[in-house]
């Protein structure tokens, strides 16, 4: 290999390693701080203690918002699956005028400013009389996360051999049986990946939730956001660290079910 080749490769690797450190470091810092024994933020941490985690779990308002977030993310994911998978199925299998436009509609929440979606839900819910309720959060988050379910569902269906569905029907399966016995088992990895994405997007959202929360009904990111405006102490690092652990678990789950590379980059 020529010298210029190795030099080019070395500098590329150098930039890449720096970029990866850039990506990992802030998260490591947060995790590190969460174990410090000092009363103020300190990195590298001094000593090693679980007390900030203990304090977090003793603060019922934090734990409650953790539950609110989990409940919201789970139900929004379920809603997005129930709506997104059948719609993806029809869009992938049927040819009809306006199909492109409807696909675009399903994916459009992805590119529109999330903060505008947040205020739109607030304003709409106010006129309809359900502002700052769980339902407002729920519908906002279903709209927010549906594109992720749609995208992976459509991608798995496009790689799926339609002859298999025909074979199932040919052998006497009704359309419903065909879906549950033949199609779903095979697109399952894609659907699971989409569901995990949806869960996480809901779980970490601030822009939609911040407009539709009350002191009693508040998700963990919004709770943290409000907390951070007035207090900066290692509790917040502990809470942050917990959400990072959830993220790591989700990423590993996706890696195990479909492979993280395949799930996050789309091969056409």
């Amino acid at each position, binding site marked *: 290999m020529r010298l210029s080749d190795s030099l080019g490769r070395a500098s590329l690797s150098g930039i890449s390693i720096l970029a990866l450190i850039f990506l990992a*470091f802030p998260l490591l810092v947060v995790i590190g701080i969460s174990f410090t024994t000092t009363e103020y933020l300190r990195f590298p941490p001094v000593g090693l203690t679980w007390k900030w985690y203990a304090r977090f779990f003793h603060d019922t308002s934090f734990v409650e918002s953790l539950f609110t977030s989990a409940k919201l993310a789970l139900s929004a994911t379920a809603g997005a699956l129930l709506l997104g998978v*059948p719609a993806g199925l029809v869009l992938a*299998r049927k040819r009809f005028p306006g199909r492109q436009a409807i696909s675009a509609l*399903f994916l459009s929440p992805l590119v529109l400013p999330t903060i505008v979606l947040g205020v739109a839900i607030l304003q709409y819910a106010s006129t309809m009389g359900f502002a700052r309720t769980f339902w407002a959060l729920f519908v906002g988050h279903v709209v927010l996360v549906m594109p992720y379910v749609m995208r992976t569902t459509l991608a798995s269906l496009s790689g799926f051999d339609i002859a298999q569905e025909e074979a199932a029907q040919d052998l006497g399966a009704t359309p419903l049986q065909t879906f549950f016995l033949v199609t779903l088992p095979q697109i399952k990895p894609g659907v699971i990946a989409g569901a995990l994405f949806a869960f996480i997007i809901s779980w970490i959202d601030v822009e939609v939730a911040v407009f539709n929360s009350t002191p009693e009904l508040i998700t963990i990111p919004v709770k943290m956001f409000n907390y951070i405006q007035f207090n900066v102490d290692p509790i917040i690092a502990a809470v*942050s660290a917990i959400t990072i652990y959830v993220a790591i678990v989700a990423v590993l789950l996706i890696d195990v079910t479909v492979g993280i590379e395949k799930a996050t980059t789309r091969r056409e």
Partner: protein
Amino acid sequence: MRINPWSAVLLLGVPVAFLFIFFIVPFGTVAVASFRMPADGGWSAANYVKIATDGYYWGALYLTFKIALWVTLLVLVVGYPLAYTITYNVRSTLLRRIIYIVIVTPLFTSSIVRAFGWLVLLGRKGMVNDTLVALDFVDKPVQILFTEGGIVIGMAYIMLPFMVLTVASILQNINTSLLEAARDLGAHPIVAFLKVTFPLSLPGVIAGSLIVFTLSVSAYVTPSILSGGKKTVMSMLIYQQYAATLNFPFGATLAVALLVSTLLLIAGYLLVIERHAKG
């Protein structure tokens, strides 16, 4: 699969109706509200006039786009080499998986947590300043936090995974034999890259920069934490109107202004690219 027409209407109709009721109509509500007066609820374009004639709003809009542009450029410069390296130069499957996990995990973490990390790192007594001083780059700690530069760094951090993943997914589809052919024909690696790989990866660069730009324009959490209230971008103004001032119509006008100007900028960008591709 043969889905009978009635099931198809039901399976697709319910989700479309849902999006119509909870997505299109709410956006419509915002658009309509932007033409209302907060005081009496009458129709008026006064909100738009206020934005157009007050330099303060132009300043916020300018800052919003300026930050978004810098973030996009920075992310492209850092993200492209990373995408290139993981696609072409990392052979080990295990290493690739680990790298992808490192890239995706921040994406799965709330922007608050990520901004919080930077809050600690960029402070006067934070690690970045400590390192700069220790390496004698600067004499005394510099102000990074609460500056535009600090916001750009924090947002670039949030946006980097989007660019890397988008570019990598395009690079994966480039036929490597084209590259080998270029090398075989005597092209220097840099020439081969500039003449073959980069042009073919342009769709990824364009898509990635569009995603990063739109997300940056509407980002709220990162700028509001890392600005310390000293800099104001559009999303922060919108939030103030809806959450503090409770002037929904004016907030709606700001949201529409942000949405429309973003779409216009994107349309202009795509137009330039198309011209360029044709010429």
